[in-house]
């Protein structure tokens, strides 16, 4: 209370609630446009789910998000992130280890990958060229849409009609056959899509993996094929580092964003828990913190997910009933867990040939689509997967700054893990049992793994929610299904970053284009704010 009286009731041009990467991106753009921006963060540290935490001795964990996969190059350039310390180290490839001791390695180089696929199936190697070409074509179509505000298809406003026309022209420009291919691509299941190209189980399983990350879907669910785009999006940019590690962990991204922001005279207050976004006479006047302090601004942009924003941080009386009903129906179910493990040395993986560079990439152990689908079935029943899909990385191999000499840090992302268990709430015991399932899964492919474990942080969706503020621990701030994408995201009619209340905006992954450490929602939201300001003048 003491130090804040001089700040209380101080007026800013804009307040951003939550210092996650999207909030910081939005903050940067607004500060650069000359606005006086204040970012408020509940935790003592900033970054949201893009953080580096020292949770065990001198080991730095990227304890939530773990790869810099999709950060828009335009954002990196405009906000001068490399100048503020961000260094992306590309990593090459990865590997799926098979239960029979074999493996399928992934290489960035198209020909090397083709040869590797040929090892399993000559026919699949031939098909791979066609597959890559077809997926890239979809990437090219999608890419410009990421940084554009979705149109409202029910509106006759010139802006919306114009945007619909733009989309229609782009779509039409593909030619008839390609248009049908695109429609199919967006509605197919990943498993069916892969079946159209490949015959070997391991090839399909390896490619399918990325289609289920963070979802409440299985590889056989329609609508999972388009997620395969993610792996190829980086290629499109022709940017080295579009798919890599941030040196110093994921926190380096948000640290660079914060530095860029502060260099534009932005201010950040951490340990400032926003209790309520204040609304008077139909528009926002600022926020109130948990301790009662009020900070005023005519614009408040929430980086929190839609449920948190409208159900926990605003009073129901200020929002339309129908809107609130739709917010409650917005699906934001947690399905992912995470383990962060400090290792006393490098584990052996006999399935991976000695000296192969793929050990520095993402490692998997799910070798059939059936195994992945059964893992999903477990989640539907309110259990963690008995044979989970894991996405393992040991970034300390490339970034030694993360760990003491000779030691390693392993990040393990897990599908599936429910937010709520069928047999009751999460307890310390159940969390440990979940961790044991994951560790056993890895140990089956690495005989010395368990002996090397110095520390393991086990995170269920419940833990993620409590620490990071992501509702139900859903990493995308809302599922990426057709009914929650584009003009439906997060709520039909409210897909353009503006809320029903004047001055209140949304900039988190709950908005288009969704989650992943992309920054596009934040940039798009900032643009919407600036456009509205220009219109008002």
């Amino acid at each position, binding site marked *: 209370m003491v130090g804040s009286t001089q700040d209380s009731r101080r007026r800013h041009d804009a307040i951003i609630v939550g210092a996650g990467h999207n909030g910081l991106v939005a903050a940067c753009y607004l500060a650069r446009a000359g606005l006086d921006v204040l970012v408020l963060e509940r935790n003592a540290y900033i970054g949201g789910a893009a953080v580096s935490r020292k949770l065990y001795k001198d080991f730095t964990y990227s304890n939530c998000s773990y790869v810099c996969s999709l950060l828009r190059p335009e954002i990196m350039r405009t906000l001068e992130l490399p100048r503020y310390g961000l260094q992306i180290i590309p990593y090459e490839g990865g590997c799926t280890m098979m239960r029979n001791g074999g493996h399928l390695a992934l290489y960035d180089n198209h020909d090397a990958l083709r040869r590797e696929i040929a090892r399993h199936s000559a026919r699949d190697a031939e098909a791979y060229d066609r597959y890559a070409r077809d997926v890239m074509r979809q990437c090219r179509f999608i890419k410009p849409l990421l940084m554009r505000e979705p149109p409202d298809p029910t509106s006759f406003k010139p802006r919306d009609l114009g945007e619909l026309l733009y989309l229609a022209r782009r779509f039409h420009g593909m030619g008839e056959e390609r248009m049908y291919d695109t429609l199919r691509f967006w509605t197919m299941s990943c498993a069916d899509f892969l079946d159209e190209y490949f015959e070997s189980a391991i090839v399909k399983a390896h490619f399918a993996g990325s289609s289920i990350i963070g979802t409440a879907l299985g590889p056989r669910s329609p609508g999972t094929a388009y997620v395969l785009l993610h792996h190829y999006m980086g290629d499109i940019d022709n940017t080295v580092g579009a798919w890599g590690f941030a040196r110093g962990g994921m926190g380096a991204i948000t640290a660079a964003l914060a530095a860029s922001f502060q260099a534009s005279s932005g201010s950040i207050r951490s340990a400032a828990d926003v209790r309520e976004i204040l609304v008077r006479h139909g528009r926002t006047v600022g926020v109130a913190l948990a301790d009662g302090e009020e900070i005023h601004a005519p614009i408040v942009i929430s980086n929190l997910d839609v449920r948190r924003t409208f159900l926990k941080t605003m009073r129901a009386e200020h929002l339309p009933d129908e809107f609130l009903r739709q917010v409650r129906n917005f699906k934001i179910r947690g399905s992912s867990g995470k383990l962060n493990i400090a290792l006393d040395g490098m584990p052996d993986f006999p399935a991976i040939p000695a000296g192969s560079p793929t050990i520095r990439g993402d490692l998997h152990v799910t070798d059939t689509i059936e195994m992945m689908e059964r893992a999903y079935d477990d989640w539907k029943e309110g259990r963690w997967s008995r044979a989970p899909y894991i996405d393992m990385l040991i970034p300390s191999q490339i970034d030694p700054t993360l760990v003491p000499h000779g030691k390693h840090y392993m990040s393990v992302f897990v599908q599936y893990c429910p937010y709520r268990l069928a047999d009751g709430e999460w307890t310390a015991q159940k969390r440990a049992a979940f961790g044991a399932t994951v560790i056993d899964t890895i140990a089956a492919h690495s005989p010395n793994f368990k002996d090397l474990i110095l520390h393991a942080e086990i995170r269920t969706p419940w833990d993620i929610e409590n620490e990071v503020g992501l509702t139900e621990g859903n990493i995308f701030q809302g599922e990426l299904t057709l009914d929650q994408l584009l003009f439906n995201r997060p709520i*039909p009619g409210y897909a353009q970053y503006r809320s029903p209340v004047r001055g209140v905006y949304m900039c988190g992954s709950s908005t288009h284009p969704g989650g992943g450490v992309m920054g596009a929602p934040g940039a798009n939201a900032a643009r919407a704010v600036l456009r509205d300001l220009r219109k008002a003048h």
Partner: protein
Amino acid sequence: MTTAVSTDARYDCIVIGGGHNGLVCAAYLARSGRSVLVLEAAARVGGAAVTREFAPGYQVSSCAHLLHLMPQAMIKELDLGAHGFKLANAAMPTTALSLGGAPLALGVGDSGDLTGASRADTLAYPAYTARLRRLARALHPIITGVPPRLGTDAWSDRLALLRMGWRIRRLGRADMRELLRIVGMNVYDLLEEHFDTPLLKGALGFDAVLGTNFGPRTPGTVLALLYRLAAHEGSSILAQPLGGLGALSDALATSAIAAGATIRTGAQVRRISLQEDRVQGVVLQSGQAIAAPVVISSCDPKTTFLGLLGSNQLDTGFVRRVSHLRSRGLAAKLHLALDARPTFTGLAAEALAGRLLIAPSLEAIERAYNHAKYGEFSAEPIFEITVPSVSDPTLAPPGKHVLSAIIQYAPYALAAGWDRQQQHFTDLAVDVLERYAPGLRASISCAELLTPLDIERQFRITGGHWHHVDLAFDQFFMVRPVPGAAQYETPVAGLYLCGAGCHPGGGVMGAAGRNAAQQVLKSGAR
């Protein structure tokens, strides 16, 4: 390349397959003055809409057993009433059975009175069904018409797309937004938003997965539900023809013949013959060649293109698309000859004349579905049951009864093999029925199970799938069955499709047959 043997009579059009779509197509073409020959391989017409004697004195609709999608307009246009078509029951109620309590009565269609749900659900039900009805009605012309093509310069296509868009826009903002939101959703999530009674959700979700390769949590199930409602202008009223579905097919055949069509049964087509890339006619298994410049196949797309035509007559891209079509039947059919009227616990007597569902909850349906993904049949399957003899005593000897049930999920490609598992599954199904209707087992005098493999063999449908091709987004509407053959025409001049493998799909509707006839007439081919 091949030269046909000397031909018999020459026809304007040959329809391969005397299933209901083939018959509808033939009837419309004949009424427009074309000379039409329908060739059916089986001894009688009907395809999967047939009535058979499965036990001495007991008749059953062998596949489809309810009528609810065929529009009244078509029944009138083809004068089916005058050709012997009559309903034994014109408005069948649906009841969801329960082991743990009273069954849930859903009434007739979707505007019926709901009895047995929670108070909140009973209050929410009318608004839910009314909205779905509005959305489905807007989709009706899309579901029943010829799909437009994308990217063409043809004004008819552009106009069709604009009309589609306008029809949706006319729903008004709230409904339009809701349609755009839910069309890609799964029915589990949709029902969770509106209701809390598990049995109600199970019953409503059941209709979204019946006949599909989906579970309630599969995205696309809301579209399947809307499809079912849209075919009938917004709500589907279940009816039972007198004499079973075979009587409907017979009436269609009689109507077609009265209009001038010729129907030959026991005449299996071996191949479609071409000359200089144009259709020339067909050759039967007997070797006889019949000439016609237009051939319309109601067989499933794989049979048509890969079986009857041959992949060497098509370009490789098209062949690849067709061979990738997913046609995996998941429904089995159980027929029981019963010595006595079955008594389902807690069921009102008049409800036995309607449709009974065993689908205790969405979770139960999803669990049943999970097995099918791995080539297993469900340990606790779900059922759509009718006892048609209650409304139609002609189907069984006096005092005896027939039970007809569609059971899901029974995958076509059963990992353990149907030949060895058939009896086991039959016993399992009867066990479940016995739980809901004590004493049923003892009254069974004969049981017949048709697995998707049987359906494939007996009705000549690849995969034993009554939609011919899975009803999934990427095999729907403008890309059904494959792009380039989605408007009933095919890349081969003179060859058309008119079966369930076309838009809008399967179910005894007749829209595919009628639309195909329309396309043939439009092209002016003689």
